[in-house]
């Protein structure tokens, strides 16, 4: 498709197309927005024509605008984008920090920007480092970057909220996904394993929140559908556990594979069994007889809410005992111990950091169980 368009026309056409779509979106708002839409369209067309004129100039900017950049000019463009990305991240971080500090309601878009950028970087790492490196002769030599831990921790915290558990997640992901350290043999599978950890909370956040926190929702007639979706979201996280096994088991003479398998399966099965109880408690929202539903004769909203809160409490405890406790134990045994045995390059730092994650998670889960609220 792009090959059919002259290089000099590609960017101007892209600008015109994207700008026109955006202007049309304003026009669809109705009312006086059409005036803004027309002004926007005019601006877009002027910008597209300017880009076309710039593309004819004999300089770096012209080469980039005309889609005929050579390797140096592409590198310049890449560096410029990286600088822009850094600025955006700093601005988003400042925005979310100020928003949280002043108790504003507008802080979450900044968090979304940070999270999306973090995912993008994670995807980039997973795509480019794996694709460009390929397997090495020393495939069983562990490799890990502390920078990755920092970034993943920040992204995880951004997605899941600034709880101790969120901070522990990336460490667990790295440990569980790479019990012998991040060897290049397993490098290719690291991205999907980590993305499991970071992706799972997103649907759960949106689906579970109204089910768990909203009394009006508990009493509403549409709760069944939501509860089912939330339960599916919760159980949908579980295939990730078995991907850890796929990563943990093959190859690797440094680790005792039967032990690794045992460590993985035993807590994994325990976790799944506990989760099933929590999911059943959510689905138990369907238990109330039709006559107790809101609007039906004999409805007692207060008792319905109480029953919903009870099922919430069961669900919370099972998820604290399952996803909260088992990964910690799993990572301590499988990740921390085996990672230490495998002799990573930063023997003190990596297993140490890996050990701190499970410990934090277990402490967080235990504290949450007995906090009394």
């Amino acid at each position: 498709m792009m090959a059919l368009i002259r290089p000099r026309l590609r960017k101007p056409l892209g600008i015109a197309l994207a700008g026109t779509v955006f202007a049309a979106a304003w026009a669809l708002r109705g009312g006086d927005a059409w005036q803004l839409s027309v002004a926007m369209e005019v601006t877009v067309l002027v910008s597209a024509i300017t880009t076309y004129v710039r593309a004819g100039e004999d300089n770096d900017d012209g080469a980039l605008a005309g889609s005929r950049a050579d390797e140096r000019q592409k590198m310049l463009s890449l560096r410029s984008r990286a600088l822009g990305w850094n600025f955006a991240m700093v601005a988003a971080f400042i925005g979310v920090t100020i928003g949280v500090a002043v108790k504003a309601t507008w802080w979450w878009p900044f968090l979304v920007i940070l999270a999306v950028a973090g995912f993008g970087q994670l995807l980039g790492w997973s795509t480019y480092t794996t694709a460009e490196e390929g397997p090495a002769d020393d495939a069983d030599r562990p490799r890990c970057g502390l920078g990755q831990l920092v970034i993943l921790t920040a992204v995880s915290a951004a997605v899941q909220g600034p709880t101790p558990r969120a901070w522990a997640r990336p460490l667990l992901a790295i440990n569980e996904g790479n019990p012998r350290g991040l060897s290049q043999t397993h490098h290719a599978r690291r991205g999907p394993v980590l993305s499991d950890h970071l992706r799972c909370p997103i649907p759960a956040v949106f689906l579970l929140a109204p089910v768990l926190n909203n009394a009006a929702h508990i009493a509403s007639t549409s709760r069944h559908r939501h509860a089912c979706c939330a339960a599916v979201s919760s159980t949908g996280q579980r295939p990730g556990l078995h991907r850890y096994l796929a990563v943990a088991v093959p190859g690797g003479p440094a680790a005792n594979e039967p032990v690794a398998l045992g460590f993985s399966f035993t807590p994994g099965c325990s976790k799944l069994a506990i989760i099933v109880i929590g999911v059943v408690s959510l689905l138990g929202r369907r238990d109330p007889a039709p006559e107790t539903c809101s609007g039906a004769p004999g409805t007692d909203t207060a008792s319905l809410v109480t029953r919903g809160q009870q099922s919430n409490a069961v669900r919370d405890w099972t998820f604290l005992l399952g996803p909260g406790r088992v990964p910690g134990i799993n990572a301590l045994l499988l990740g921390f111990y085996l990672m230490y045995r495998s002799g990573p390059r930063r023997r003190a730092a990596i297993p140490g950091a890996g050990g701190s994650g499970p410990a934090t998670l277990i402490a967080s889960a235990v504290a949450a169980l007995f906090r009394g609220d």
Partner: protein
Amino acid sequence: MRNRVREQRTQREMSQAELAAALGVSRQTVISIEGGRYLPSLPLAFTIARFFGLTVDKMFDPDEEAGT
């Protein structure tokens, strides 16, 4: 890293634009390479060396600073 791009180009009485066209890069990139401000990729380094009939290590000397 010092290179002989400018020296070889002037010997052949070529302009920077002509060399750029021959190498398939921009004139600005030739200027940057000649000034030692940009180190070309390995494929481009080979292209430059072959264009002038030299080897890469004759064309680019890692032991000398650019401009010396």
